[in-house]
């Protein structure tokens, strides 16, 4: 299998190209973000076929509602990952999906970083992967629930049986820890 070279643009270039509805923008968008978005979606929805559908729906929605994105409100990925997470959670909570997958919501004990998954090999992230492992268990847990399970912090507090304030602090601490490593 010959590996196709992926298209990569700077975020500013990408946003500009997307606004102009250029074909290359769509390809670049997919190449740059599909794996990150799929990482989030596939952890919320374990059914591969449904997760793939949600990824497609995510890109359709991004493309369709791109006019509502503004660089002043934050980074492109933040906007996109929230679309992906919302679509995934909507799908997860939709009636017909619930009926098919009654056990879905009980599966919150998956390993934080799933080694079996087809995770992306990126040299620039080599060291960081190890550093993520240094997160404390409770920090991993809160990140997993909020970022990869689609819990609101209120639901997470309920799930873990700890006060709301603690949840917020714990989430902040976890992200602070990541920042230390990433910077």
């Amino acid at each position, binding site marked *: 299998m010959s590996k196709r070279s992926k298209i990569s643009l700077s975020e500013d270039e990408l946003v500009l190209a997307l606004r102009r509805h250029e074909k290359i923008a*769509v390809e670049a968008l997919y190449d740059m973000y599909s*794996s990150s978005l799929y990482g989030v979606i596939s952890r919320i929805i374990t059914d591969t076929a449904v997760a793939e559908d949600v990824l497609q729906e995510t890109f359709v929605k991004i493309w369709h509602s791109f006019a509502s994105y503004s660089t002043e409100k934050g980074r492109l990925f933040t906007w996109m990952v929230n679309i992906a997470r919302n679509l995934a959670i909507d799908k997860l909570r939709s009636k017909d999906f619930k009926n098919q997958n009654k056990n879905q919501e009980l599966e919150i004990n998956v390993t934080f*970083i799933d080694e079996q998954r087809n995770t992306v090999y990126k040299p620039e992230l080599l060291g960081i992967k190890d550093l993520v492992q240094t997160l404390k268990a409770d920090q991993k847990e809160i990140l997993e629930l909020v970022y990869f399970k689609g819990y609101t912090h209120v639901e997470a507090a309920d799930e873990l049986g700890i006060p709301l304030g603690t949840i917020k602090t714990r989430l902040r601490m976890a992200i602070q820890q990541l920042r230390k490593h990433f910077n």
Partner: protein
Amino acid sequence: MEDIKSYIESGILELYVVGDVTPGEKLQVEEMASKHPVIKAELEEIERSMELFAAVNAVEPPAQLRDRVLNSLLTNFSDDNNFPTKHPQPVKDNVIAMPAPKANNFYKYAFAACLALLIASVVTLFSVYNKLQDANTQLVALNSSNQKFSTTVRFMDRQLSIYRDTSFKVIRLKGTANLPKGLALVAFSPAKNKVVIDLADLNMPVNDKAHQYQLWAIVGKTPVSLGVFDKTDADSTVMKEMKSVEFANAFAVTREPRGGSINPTMSEMMVVGTL
């Protein structure tokens, strides 16, 4: 400055980045970020961290999904208002829509033609039938007139044969006091013993159902019955042959009860003529 610091430390910015805020909180964060560069910088940091975190945890989607997604986006390139946001058509869908069957107009037109032909046929048949009826009526009329004509011809032929026959004597029976204008023609052939009465030239009133006229031959002084006849409304074209007699001095017609009488009722004598 303290406020900003505690706002940052409240954890609301992290929740904002993971999308776990109410619309009100969202507006507030965005407003704070636009007012305070410190907050904006903090947000940017959190966003970058989460983006990297997501990159670390990225999962490569199946290779064929790329084409499927790109196709679903680029198919609607020119018209991105019509995105099938709910159920985008999967490219791997192996159900291929058959092209709409080309409308075959032949049977439609054939049917119309048949119908038109049928209507035309019915109309023609009807008019032909009417003509046939007319022809039939005419034929019947012609037939009857022909029959009438042939009857007339036969009568005239017979009348002529009798009148031209020199053995026949034609006796004009004239009206009596009972019927002053009465007239009857009787042809008598003593040689052939034949008596014929011409009902066509009979000038006598129509007899009722109870009566008939009776022709008598007066032989010497004795009246001999030669039979009864009727005078009808219709034009009669009959040379009626009566009973035969060898000799007669005179002929007379009386009105008798239907069937005739043995002896003539003299008071009812209508016409009489002597040889």
